[in-house]
Protein backbone atom coordinates (compact mmCIF):
# COMPACT_ATOMS: atom_id res chain seq x y z
CA UNK A 1 0.00 0.00 0.00
CA UNK A 2 1.31 3.37 -0.91
CA UNK A 3 0.11 6.50 0.81
CA UNK A 4 1.42 9.53 -0.98
CA UNK A 5 0.35 13.09 -0.71
CA UNK A 6 3.29 15.07 -2.03
CA UNK A 7 3.66 18.83 -1.75
CA UNK A 8 2.42 21.20 -4.50
CA UNK A 9 4.70 21.90 -7.45
CA UNK A 10 7.64 24.04 -6.33
CA UNK A 11 11.30 23.98 -7.28
CA UNK A 12 12.63 20.88 -5.58
CA UNK A 13 15.85 21.14 -3.68
CA UNK A 14 16.54 17.45 -3.46
CA UNK A 15 15.09 14.64 -5.51
CA UNK A 16 15.80 10.93 -5.25
CA UNK A 17 14.95 9.04 -8.43
CA UNK A 18 14.41 5.30 -8.28
CA UNK A 19 17.44 4.52 -6.17
CA UNK A 20 18.57 0.93 -6.05
CA UNK A 21 21.47 -0.41 -4.10
CA UNK A 22 22.46 -3.95 -3.20
CA UNK A 23 25.24 -5.49 -1.19
CA UNK A 24 26.61 -8.85 -2.31
CA UNK A 25 23.51 -9.45 -4.39
CA UNK A 26 21.05 -8.69 -1.62
CA UNK A 27 19.10 -5.50 -2.30
CA UNK A 28 19.25 -2.99 0.52
CA UNK A 29 16.97 -0.42 -1.11
CA UNK A 30 14.69 -0.75 -4.11
CA UNK A 31 13.03 2.00 -6.10
CA UNK A 32 13.36 4.67 -3.43
CA UNK A 33 12.11 8.02 -4.69
CA UNK A 34 11.01 11.19 -2.98
CA UNK A 35 11.37 14.93 -3.24
CA UNK A 36 12.14 17.73 -0.83
CA UNK A 37 11.26 21.36 -1.40
CA UNK A 38 12.98 24.32 0.27
CA UNK A 39 11.41 25.12 3.62
CA UNK A 40 10.22 21.57 4.24
CA UNK A 41 11.07 19.46 7.24
CA UNK A 42 10.75 15.88 6.11
CA UNK A 43 10.78 13.00 8.57
CA UNK A 44 12.40 9.76 7.50
CA UNK A 45 11.31 6.74 9.49
CA UNK A 46 11.86 3.04 9.41
CA UNK A 47 12.95 0.11 11.52
CA UNK A 48 16.58 -0.91 11.64
CA UNK A 49 17.73 -2.63 8.51
CA UNK A 50 15.02 -0.94 6.46
CA UNK A 51 17.50 0.87 4.25
CA UNK A 52 17.49 4.25 5.99
CA UNK A 53 21.22 4.45 6.53
CA UNK A 54 21.92 3.18 3.01
CA UNK A 55 19.73 5.93 1.58
CA UNK A 56 21.41 8.54 3.77
CA UNK A 57 24.86 7.34 2.75
CA UNK A 58 23.88 7.65 -0.89
CA UNK A 59 22.56 11.17 -0.34
CA UNK A 60 25.73 12.24 1.48
CA UNK A 61 27.89 10.76 -1.24
CA UNK A 62 29.57 8.09 0.87
CA UNK A 63 28.02 5.36 -1.26
CA UNK A 64 27.12 5.11 -4.97
CA UNK A 65 23.76 3.69 -5.99
CA UNK A 66 23.70 0.73 -8.35
CA UNK A 67 20.84 2.38 -10.17
CA UNK A 68 18.94 5.65 -10.01
CA UNK A 69 20.25 9.09 -9.18
CA UNK A 70 20.09 11.92 -6.72
CA UNK A 71 19.34 15.38 -8.02
CA UNK A 72 20.21 18.54 -6.19
CA UNK A 73 18.60 21.67 -7.61
CA UNK A 74 17.99 19.70 -10.76
CA UNK A 75 21.59 18.56 -11.18
CA UNK A 76 22.82 14.99 -10.77
CA UNK A 77 25.10 15.10 -7.73
CA UNK A 78 27.42 12.50 -9.24
CA UNK A 79 28.36 15.04 -11.90
CA UNK A 80 29.39 17.73 -9.44
CA UNK A 81 29.90 16.21 -6.03
CA UNK A 82 31.95 19.14 -4.85
CA UNK A 83 29.18 21.70 -5.36
CA UNK A 84 26.72 19.43 -3.60
CA UNK A 85 29.00 18.85 -0.65
CA UNK A 86 29.37 22.56 -0.19
CA UNK A 87 25.60 22.88 0.08
CA UNK A 88 24.64 20.30 2.65
CA UNK A 89 25.25 19.84 6.36
CA UNK A 90 25.06 16.43 7.99
CA UNK A 91 24.80 15.33 11.60
CA UNK A 92 25.26 11.53 11.74
CA UNK A 93 23.60 9.37 14.33
CA UNK A 94 26.70 8.28 16.13
CA UNK A 95 28.70 11.24 17.27
CA UNK A 96 32.13 10.15 16.11
CA UNK A 97 34.52 13.03 16.50
CA UNK A 98 38.23 13.51 16.86
CA UNK A 99 37.93 13.52 20.60
CA UNK A 100 41.42 14.74 21.32
CA UNK A 101 40.60 18.05 19.67
CA UNK A 102 38.81 20.75 21.63
CA UNK A 103 35.34 21.88 20.57
CA UNK A 104 36.72 25.02 19.01
CA UNK A 105 39.56 23.21 17.25
CA UNK A 106 37.11 20.76 15.74
CA UNK A 107 34.94 23.54 14.37
CA UNK A 108 38.04 25.26 13.00
CA UNK A 109 39.05 22.04 11.29
CA UNK A 110 35.67 21.64 9.65
CA UNK A 111 35.54 25.30 8.68
CA UNK A 112 38.98 25.23 7.11
CA UNK A 113 38.25 22.01 5.26
CA UNK A 114 35.23 23.79 3.85
CA UNK A 115 37.40 26.72 2.81
CA UNK A 116 35.77 29.29 5.08
CA UNK A 117 37.73 32.46 5.51
CA UNK A 118 39.68 32.60 8.80
CA UNK A 119 38.11 35.65 10.41
CA UNK A 120 34.59 34.70 9.49
CA UNK A 121 35.20 31.18 10.72
CA UNK A 122 36.54 32.44 14.02
CA UNK A 123 33.52 34.64 14.62
CA UNK A 124 30.98 32.05 13.63
CA UNK A 125 32.62 29.24 15.56
CA UNK A 126 33.01 31.10 18.83
CA UNK A 127 29.56 32.63 18.71
CA UNK A 128 27.89 29.36 17.82
CA UNK A 129 29.62 27.65 20.72
CA UNK A 130 28.47 30.43 22.98
CA UNK A 131 24.86 30.21 21.83
CA UNK A 132 24.90 26.46 22.34
CA UNK A 133 26.15 26.85 25.92
CA UNK A 134 29.57 25.43 25.19
CA UNK A 135 31.59 28.60 25.69
CA UNK A 136 33.26 27.62 28.97
CA UNK A 137 34.36 24.31 27.52
CA UNK A 138 35.39 25.33 24.03
CA UNK A 139 39.07 24.76 24.84
CA UNK A 140 38.60 21.43 26.60
CA UNK A 141 39.09 18.23 24.62
CA UNK A 142 35.95 16.65 23.25
CA UNK A 143 36.86 13.44 25.08
CA UNK A 144 35.70 15.16 28.25
CA UNK A 145 32.36 16.22 26.75
CA UNK A 146 29.11 14.48 27.56
CA UNK A 147 27.06 12.95 24.75
CA UNK A 148 24.83 15.99 24.54
CA UNK A 149 27.77 18.35 24.25
CA UNK A 150 29.29 16.31 21.43
CA UNK A 151 25.97 16.41 19.69
CA UNK A 152 25.93 20.19 19.97
CA UNK A 153 29.40 20.40 18.45
CA UNK A 154 28.22 18.30 15.52
CA UNK A 155 25.17 20.50 15.06
CA UNK A 156 27.37 23.58 15.06
CA UNK A 157 29.73 21.96 12.54
CA UNK A 158 26.82 21.21 10.22
CA UNK A 159 25.60 24.79 10.29
CA UNK A 160 28.88 26.68 9.86
CA UNK A 161 28.75 27.03 6.11
CA UNK A 162 25.09 28.00 5.78
CA UNK A 163 23.99 24.91 3.89
CA UNK A 164 20.79 24.70 1.88
CA UNK A 165 20.08 21.11 2.82
CA UNK A 166 20.36 19.71 6.32
CA UNK A 167 20.36 16.05 7.19
CA UNK A 168 19.92 15.23 10.85
CA UNK A 169 20.09 11.67 12.11
CA UNK A 170 18.69 11.40 15.65
CA UNK A 171 19.82 14.94 16.45
CA UNK A 172 18.09 15.05 19.83
CA UNK A 173 19.88 12.01 21.16
CA UNK A 174 21.74 12.86 24.34
CA UNK A 175 20.44 16.41 24.46
CA UNK A 176 18.87 17.76 27.61
CA UNK A 177 15.39 19.25 27.64
CA UNK A 178 16.49 22.84 27.16
CA UNK A 179 18.71 22.11 24.19
CA UNK A 180 15.99 19.93 22.68
CA UNK A 181 13.62 22.87 22.78
CA UNK A 182 16.29 25.17 21.38
CA UNK A 183 16.92 22.78 18.54
CA UNK A 184 13.26 22.50 17.68
CA UNK A 185 12.88 26.28 17.66
CA UNK A 186 15.97 26.46 15.48
CA UNK A 187 14.56 23.93 13.02
CA UNK A 188 11.47 26.04 12.52
CA UNK A 189 13.55 29.12 11.83
CA UNK A 190 15.85 27.30 9.44
CA UNK A 191 12.89 25.98 7.51
CA UNK A 192 11.43 29.48 7.41
CA UNK A 193 14.73 30.64 5.91
CA UNK A 194 14.14 28.26 3.02
CA UNK A 195 16.40 25.39 3.98
CA UNK A 196 15.27 21.82 3.52
CA UNK A 197 15.67 19.46 6.44
CA UNK A 198 15.72 15.68 6.36
CA UNK A 199 14.98 14.51 9.88
CA UNK A 200 15.66 10.90 10.72
CA UNK A 201 14.50 9.68 14.07
CA UNK A 202 12.94 6.91 16.09
CA UNK A 203 11.25 9.25 18.51
CA UNK A 204 7.88 9.34 16.80
CA UNK A 205 6.27 11.88 19.11
CA UNK A 206 8.81 14.51 18.14
CA UNK A 207 8.61 13.65 14.45
CA UNK A 208 4.88 14.11 14.59
CA UNK A 209 5.27 17.58 16.06
CA UNK A 210 8.17 18.84 14.01
CA UNK A 211 7.85 17.44 10.49
CA UNK A 212 5.70 18.69 7.63
CA UNK A 213 5.90 15.32 5.94
CA UNK A 214 7.01 11.85 6.81
CA UNK A 215 8.47 9.14 4.64
CA UNK A 216 8.24 5.62 5.98
CA UNK A 217 10.64 3.03 4.65
CA UNK A 218 10.67 -0.67 5.42
CA UNK A 219 12.50 -3.63 3.83
CA UNK A 220 14.12 -1.30 1.32
CA UNK A 221 10.94 0.26 -0.04
CA UNK A 222 9.07 3.47 0.58
CA UNK A 223 5.72 2.66 2.18
CA UNK A 224 4.35 6.13 2.85
CA UNK A 225 5.09 9.73 1.93
CA UNK A 226 2.54 12.17 3.36
CA UNK A 227 1.75 14.60 6.15
CA UNK A 228 1.51 12.90 9.55
CA UNK A 229 -2.05 14.05 10.13
CA UNK A 230 -3.15 12.91 6.67
CA UNK A 231 -1.55 9.53 7.16
CA UNK A 232 -3.24 8.99 10.48
CA UNK A 233 -6.61 9.99 8.98
CA UNK A 234 -6.16 7.84 5.90
CA UNK A 235 -5.44 4.80 7.99
CA UNK A 236 -7.97 5.63 10.69
CA UNK A 237 -5.38 5.38 13.40
CA UNK A 238 -4.94 7.81 16.30
CA UNK A 239 -1.26 8.73 15.99
CA UNK A 240 1.97 8.21 14.12
CA UNK A 241 3.04 5.43 16.39
CA UNK A 242 0.12 3.22 15.49
CA UNK A 243 0.48 4.13 11.82
CA UNK A 244 4.06 3.08 11.97
CA UNK A 245 3.31 -0.12 13.82
CA UNK A 246 0.72 -1.06 11.22
CA UNK A 247 2.88 -0.22 8.23
CA UNK A 248 5.86 -2.02 9.51
CA UNK A 249 3.92 -4.95 10.97
CA UNK A 250 5.46 -4.53 14.35
CA UNK A 251 5.48 -7.55 16.59
CA UNK A 252 3.39 -7.54 19.71
CA UNK A 253 5.70 -5.84 22.11
CA UNK A 254 3.82 -6.83 25.20
CA UNK A 255 4.35 -10.51 24.49
CA UNK A 256 7.99 -9.99 23.77
CA UNK A 257 8.43 -8.11 27.04
CA UNK A 258 6.76 -10.87 29.00
CA UNK A 259 8.95 -13.45 27.35
CA UNK A 260 11.98 -11.45 28.27
CA UNK A 261 11.12 -11.29 31.94
CA UNK A 262 10.53 -15.05 31.88
CA UNK A 263 13.99 -15.58 30.49
CA UNK A 264 15.48 -13.31 33.11
CA UNK A 265 14.01 -15.46 35.81
CA UNK A 266 15.09 -18.83 34.45
CA UNK A 267 16.37 -20.99 37.28
CA UNK A 268 15.44 -18.29 39.74
CA UNK A 269 17.05 -19.04 43.06
Amino acid at each position, binding site marked *: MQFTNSSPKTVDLLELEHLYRSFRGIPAIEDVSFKMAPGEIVGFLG*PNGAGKSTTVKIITGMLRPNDGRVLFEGQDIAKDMVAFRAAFGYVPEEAHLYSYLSGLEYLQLVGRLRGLEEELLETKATRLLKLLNLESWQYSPISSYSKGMRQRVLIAAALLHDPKLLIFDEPLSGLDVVTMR*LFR*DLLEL*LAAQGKAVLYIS*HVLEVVEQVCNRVIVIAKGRVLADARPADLAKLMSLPNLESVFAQLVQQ*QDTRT*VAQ*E*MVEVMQIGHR
Partner: protein
Amino acid sequence: MLELRHVSKRFSGIPAVDDVSFSARPGEVTGYLGPNGSGKSTTMKMITGLIERSAGHIVFQGKPIEENLIAYKRRMGYVPEEPYLYTHLSGLEYLTMVAQLRDLPARQSGTRIDGMLRLFSLHDDRHASISGYSKGMRQKVLLIAALMHNPQLILLDEPFSGLDVGSSLVLRSLIRELAARGKVVLFSSHELDTVERICSRVVILHHGKLVADDSIERLRSLMELPTLEQIFSQLAVEQDTESTARQIADLIDA
Protein backbone atom coordinates in the same frame (compact mmCIF):
# COMPACT_ATOMS: atom_id res chain seq x y z
CA MET B 1 11.96 0.05 48.28
CA LEU B 2 14.78 2.51 47.64
CA GLU B 3 14.95 5.53 49.91
CA LEU B 4 17.16 8.56 49.83
CA ARG B 5 17.20 10.40 53.14
CA HIS B 6 18.69 13.86 53.21
CA VAL B 7 21.43 12.94 50.78
CA SER B 8 23.99 15.61 49.95
CA LYS B 9 27.19 15.68 47.97
CA ARG B 10 29.76 18.42 47.95
CA PHE B 11 32.64 18.88 45.54
CA SER B 12 35.24 21.11 47.18
CA GLY B 13 32.59 22.78 49.28
CA ILE B 14 30.13 23.42 46.47
CA PRO B 15 26.96 21.36 46.91
CA ALA B 16 26.10 19.44 43.78
CA VAL B 17 23.28 17.65 45.55
CA ASP B 18 21.60 19.39 48.48
CA ASP B 19 19.44 17.54 50.99
CA VAL B 20 17.56 15.34 48.56
CA SER B 21 15.02 12.87 49.93
CA PHE B 22 12.63 10.69 47.99
CA SER B 23 11.66 7.07 47.63
CA ALA B 24 11.11 4.71 44.75
CA ARG B 25 8.61 1.98 45.52
CA PRO B 26 8.36 -1.54 44.13
CA GLY B 27 5.67 -2.00 41.53
CA GLU B 28 6.05 1.58 40.28
CA VAL B 29 8.19 3.15 37.62
CA THR B 30 9.67 6.30 39.12
CA GLY B 31 10.81 8.94 36.67
CA TYR B 32 13.86 10.94 37.55
CA LEU B 33 14.32 14.23 35.76
CA GLY B 34 16.44 17.32 35.83
CA PRO B 35 18.24 19.68 33.48
CA ASN B 36 22.02 19.51 33.06
CA GLY B 37 23.87 20.51 36.17
CA SER B 38 20.94 19.67 38.43
CA GLY B 39 22.83 16.97 40.28
CA LYS B 40 20.88 14.23 38.59
CA SER B 41 23.85 12.18 37.42
CA THR B 42 25.67 12.72 40.69
CA THR B 43 22.71 11.32 42.60
CA MET B 44 22.53 8.40 40.23
CA LYS B 45 26.20 7.68 40.85
CA MET B 46 25.61 7.76 44.58
CA ILE B 47 22.71 5.36 44.28
CA THR B 48 24.82 2.95 42.25
CA GLY B 49 27.54 3.10 44.86
CA LEU B 50 30.04 4.61 42.48
CA ILE B 51 30.77 7.62 44.69
CA GLU B 52 30.22 8.31 48.35
CA ARG B 53 27.71 10.68 49.84
CA SER B 54 28.86 13.66 51.85
CA ALA B 55 25.80 13.38 54.07
CA GLY B 56 22.56 11.46 54.40
CA HIS B 57 21.68 7.82 53.80
CA ILE B 58 20.66 5.65 50.93
CA VAL B 59 18.55 2.75 52.12
CA PHE B 60 17.45 -0.25 50.09
CA GLN B 61 14.94 -2.71 51.52
CA GLY B 62 15.51 -1.32 54.96
CA LYS B 63 19.30 -1.53 55.02
CA PRO B 64 21.74 1.27 54.32
CA ILE B 65 23.69 0.31 51.25
CA GLU B 66 27.14 0.91 52.70
CA GLU B 67 26.55 -1.83 55.23
CA ASN B 68 27.18 -4.40 52.56
CA LEU B 69 27.91 -2.76 49.29
CA ILE B 70 28.73 -5.96 47.48
CA ALA B 71 25.45 -7.63 48.44
CA TYR B 72 23.64 -4.49 47.33
CA LYS B 73 25.36 -4.57 43.94
CA ARG B 74 24.26 -8.17 43.53
CA ARG B 75 20.67 -7.07 43.58
CA MET B 76 21.10 -3.96 41.50
CA GLY B 77 21.10 -3.58 37.74
CA TYR B 78 22.35 -0.35 36.22
CA VAL B 79 22.25 0.89 32.64
CA PRO B 80 24.53 3.95 32.50
CA GLU B 81 24.11 6.85 30.16
CA GLU B 82 27.53 6.57 28.58
CA PRO B 83 28.08 3.08 27.14
CA TYR B 84 31.33 1.99 28.72
CA LEU B 85 32.18 -1.44 27.38
CA TYR B 86 35.28 -3.50 26.72
CA THR B 87 35.18 -3.14 22.98
CA HIS B 88 37.80 -5.75 22.19
CA LEU B 89 35.38 -8.46 23.31
CA SER B 90 32.46 -9.81 21.36
CA GLY B 91 28.94 -9.25 22.65
CA LEU B 92 28.64 -12.80 23.92
CA GLU B 93 32.10 -12.76 25.53
CA TYR B 94 31.34 -9.55 27.35
CA LEU B 95 28.03 -10.83 28.66
CA THR B 96 29.58 -14.14 29.69
CA MET B 97 32.31 -12.25 31.52
CA VAL B 98 29.76 -10.16 33.38
CA ALA B 99 27.82 -13.30 34.27
CA GLN B 100 30.98 -14.89 35.64
CA LEU B 101 31.92 -11.77 37.57
CA ARG B 102 28.45 -11.82 39.05
CA ASP B 103 28.97 -15.40 40.13
CA LEU B 104 25.99 -16.76 38.20
CA PRO B 105 25.90 -20.51 37.57
CA ALA B 106 27.28 -21.09 34.09
CA ARG B 107 24.49 -23.08 32.49
CA GLN B 108 21.74 -20.85 33.80
CA SER B 109 23.42 -17.67 32.77
CA GLY B 110 24.19 -19.17 29.38
CA THR B 111 20.52 -19.88 28.78
CA ARG B 112 19.48 -16.48 30.02
CA ILE B 113 21.99 -14.65 27.89
CA ASP B 114 21.06 -16.67 24.84
CA GLY B 115 17.36 -16.04 25.33
CA MET B 116 17.79 -12.33 25.88
CA LEU B 117 20.06 -11.95 22.87
CA ARG B 118 17.36 -13.51 20.72
CA LEU B 119 14.62 -11.33 22.13
CA PHE B 120 16.66 -8.22 21.49
CA SER B 121 17.50 -9.42 17.95
CA LEU B 122 21.18 -9.49 18.75
CA HIS B 123 21.67 -13.22 18.48
CA ASP B 124 23.14 -13.22 14.97
CA ASP B 125 25.78 -10.66 15.89
CA ARG B 126 26.76 -12.10 19.22
CA HIS B 127 30.20 -13.25 18.07
CA ALA B 128 31.17 -9.98 16.42
CA SER B 129 33.47 -7.58 18.27
CA ILE B 130 31.70 -4.81 20.16
CA SER B 131 33.89 -2.25 18.45
CA GLY B 132 31.81 -2.90 15.35
CA TYR B 133 28.45 -2.58 17.06
CA SER B 134 26.14 0.33 16.38
CA LYS B 135 24.98 2.52 19.23
CA GLY B 136 21.71 0.64 19.50
CA MET B 137 23.42 -2.71 19.68
CA ARG B 138 25.74 -1.53 22.44
CA GLN B 139 22.75 -0.25 24.33
CA LYS B 140 21.14 -3.66 24.09
CA VAL B 141 24.31 -5.29 25.43
CA LEU B 142 24.20 -2.92 28.38
CA LEU B 143 20.55 -3.74 28.99
CA ILE B 144 21.14 -7.46 28.97
CA ALA B 145 24.16 -7.08 31.25
CA ALA B 146 22.04 -5.11 33.69
CA LEU B 147 19.11 -7.53 33.72
CA MET B 148 20.66 -10.96 33.42
CA HIS B 149 20.94 -11.54 37.15
CA ASN B 150 17.29 -10.74 37.83
CA PRO B 151 17.95 -7.69 39.99
CA GLN B 152 15.46 -6.25 42.47
CA LEU B 153 16.50 -2.67 41.83
CA ILE B 154 16.80 -1.42 38.28
CA LEU B 155 18.37 1.94 37.46
CA LEU B 156 18.05 3.18 33.90
CA ASP B 157 19.76 6.27 32.60
CA GLU B 158 18.63 7.21 29.09
CA PRO B 159 18.05 3.56 28.20
CA PHE B 160 16.30 4.32 24.90
CA SER B 161 19.22 6.14 23.37
CA GLY B 162 20.19 4.50 20.08
CA LEU B 163 17.32 2.06 19.99
CA ASP B 164 15.12 1.87 16.93
CA VAL B 165 11.36 2.11 17.18
CA GLY B 166 10.78 -1.60 17.50
CA SER B 167 13.29 -2.07 20.29
CA SER B 168 12.11 1.10 22.03
CA LEU B 169 8.59 -0.22 22.15
CA VAL B 170 9.82 -3.57 23.47
CA LEU B 171 11.85 -1.81 26.14
CA ARG B 172 8.88 0.30 27.10
CA SER B 173 6.77 -2.78 27.64
CA LEU B 174 9.65 -4.47 29.42
CA ILE B 175 9.96 -1.66 31.93
CA ARG B 176 6.25 -1.83 32.68
CA GLU B 177 6.45 -5.59 33.03
CA LEU B 178 9.39 -5.38 35.43
CA ALA B 179 7.54 -2.93 37.61
CA ALA B 180 4.45 -5.11 37.52
CA ARG B 181 6.52 -7.95 38.95
CA GLY B 182 7.41 -5.96 42.02
CA LYS B 183 10.80 -4.55 41.15
CA VAL B 184 11.92 -1.04 41.97
CA VAL B 185 12.53 0.84 38.73
CA LEU B 186 14.15 4.25 38.62
CA PHE B 187 14.12 5.71 35.13
CA SER B 188 15.87 8.86 34.03
CA SER B 189 15.47 10.50 30.63
CA HIS B 190 15.27 13.76 28.77
CA GLU B 191 12.53 12.47 26.48
CA LEU B 192 9.61 13.75 28.50
CA ASP B 193 6.94 12.20 26.28
CA THR B 194 8.32 8.75 27.01
CA VAL B 195 8.61 9.51 30.73
CA GLU B 196 5.04 10.68 30.75
CA ARG B 197 3.86 7.42 29.24
CA ILE B 198 5.80 5.00 31.38
CA CYS B 199 6.14 6.55 34.80
CA SER B 200 3.57 6.80 37.49
CA ARG B 201 5.56 9.25 39.60
CA VAL B 202 8.29 11.72 38.84
CA VAL B 203 11.06 13.25 40.89
CA ILE B 204 12.43 16.51 39.52
CA LEU B 205 15.77 18.01 40.53
CA HIS B 206 16.93 21.54 39.90
CA HIS B 207 20.18 23.11 41.08
CA GLY B 208 20.81 20.14 43.33
CA LYS B 209 17.49 20.39 45.14
CA LEU B 210 14.27 18.47 44.87
CA VAL B 211 11.52 20.55 43.29
CA ALA B 212 8.86 17.91 42.71
CA ASP B 213 8.11 14.41 43.92
CA ASP B 214 4.59 13.36 42.99
CA SER B 215 2.44 11.35 40.64
CA ILE B 216 2.02 12.92 37.22
CA GLU B 217 -1.74 13.41 37.56
CA ARG B 218 -1.35 15.29 40.81
CA LEU B 219 1.35 17.47 39.32
CA ARG B 220 -0.91 18.20 36.36
CA SER B 221 -3.78 19.31 38.57
CA LEU B 222 -1.58 21.13 41.07
CA MET B 223 0.14 23.20 38.45
CA GLU B 224 -2.77 23.33 36.01
CA LEU B 225 -0.55 22.33 33.11
CA PRO B 226 -1.52 19.55 30.68
CA THR B 227 1.82 17.99 29.81
CA LEU B 228 4.92 16.94 31.69
CA GLU B 229 7.00 19.05 29.36
CA GLN B 230 5.24 22.21 30.41
CA ILE B 231 5.44 21.23 34.07
CA PHE B 232 9.13 20.63 33.70
CA SER B 233 9.72 23.89 31.85
CA GLN B 234 7.96 25.78 34.59
CA LEU B 235 9.95 24.14 37.35
CA ALA B 236 13.36 23.73 35.89
CA VAL B 237 14.02 25.61 32.69
CA GLU B 238 15.39 29.14 32.65
CA GLN B 239 16.60 29.84 29.14
CA ASP B 240 14.62 31.68 26.47
CA THR B 241 15.17 29.21 23.69
CA GLU B 242 13.28 31.11 21.01
CA SER B 243 15.51 34.13 21.05
CA THR B 244 18.65 31.99 21.20
CA ALA B 245 17.42 30.05 18.19
CA ARG B 246 16.85 33.30 16.33
CA GLN B 247 20.38 34.44 17.10
CA ILE B 248 21.79 31.18 15.80
CA ALA B 249 19.79 31.36 12.61
CA ASP B 250 20.96 34.94 12.01
CA LEU B 251 24.56 34.04 12.71
CA ILE B 252 24.59 31.22 10.20
CA ASP B 253 23.17 33.46 7.56
CA ALA B 254 26.02 35.96 7.95
